[in-house]
């Protein structure tokens, strides 16, 4: 029971951190990784003992992964566009 509570807390914390990561450009990649870890910890916590904190951790991690994925891909595309607009050096 105590173990599942710890897992739920870890999931929630990782979910919050990964949501914050989206505001830091390439930090969104870290957000995706932390969100995935948070999601898996939340699932394990919820399977062991369902709790509100585990559900919150899962939901927050899913939102974080989605937002970070969209943000990160846009960020990489913007860098690509910037590189394409630079004059070619012969």
């Amino acid at each position: 029971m105590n173990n599942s509570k710890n897992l739920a807390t870890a999931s929630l914390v990782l979910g919050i951190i990964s949501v914050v990561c989206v505001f830091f450009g390439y930090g969104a990649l870290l957000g995706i990784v932390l969100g995935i870890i948070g999601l898996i910890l939340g699932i394990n916590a919820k399977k062991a003992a369902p709790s509100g904190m585990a559900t919150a951790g899962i939901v927050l991690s899913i939102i974080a992964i989605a937002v970070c994925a969209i943000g990160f891909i846009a960020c990489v595309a913007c860098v690509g566009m910037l590189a394409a607009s630079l004059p070619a050096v012969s």
Partner: protein
Amino acid sequence: MYPLIHLGPITLGTYGLMICLGVALAALALIPVCRRLGQSTQDALFMAVYALVAAAVGSKLLYLFTVLPQLPDYTGEQWAGLLSGGWVFYGGLLGAVGGAVLYCRQFHLDTLALVEPVVVVLPLGHAIGRVGCFMAGCCYGCPCPPPWGITLRNSFIAPNDIPLFPVQLAEAAALLLLFAALVLFTRRHSHPQRTLGLYVTIYAMARFFLEMLRYDADRGVWLGLSTSQWISLALIPLGIALLCRGESGFLRKKLNFADWAPKKNQ
């Protein structure tokens, strides 16, 4: 076509947006499908999460395998590009199978029974993802005169100002048809092994032919066939075998972890 969407000060990548939309819609569609097939929606969703994570790893690994000979010549920018782009669906599919088995083994569930509803909704999410490919301009088709060919103007990936066959949209249409076929197939009865067999057979056949219409270079070609075509050739007999074997057999028993207990160390 529209790789980026600008909403005031915010810029969104359409590829990522469509993939997230596809996952969200597939997850929503999973709820009624699970109810009809008598499976736990929560377990199916959680298993899908494990499968998605493993799919991302498998997809990236297979892409790296296809570009292995070119990797030593990659520039820093190309290495950075590998972090976001470069995914191979078949690598994802193989990884997803591993993730699903891992989840069912961990929580003692019948893998094939739980995989069935996920397989039914998978083509829906995949179809929307393919629309994302079209928007971003990746996975593009061969040059083709209008009206079938579509000319791109601001793609970072596909060649601009040449009419290209929208093979991504053709695959999306094929996947939507496959989704409808799977929904109809599972409407009355649950038959996990046959559902999986039907999905594998039809998708592999469709992919084999659609690959012929593709024009993007980084796909690893051996003996005139791309990596995905070779995998399709291997999957077609496997899918037919699953369809013909019915609901009995080695695979069904081997992947049922409902009564499974881990071996304890003496």
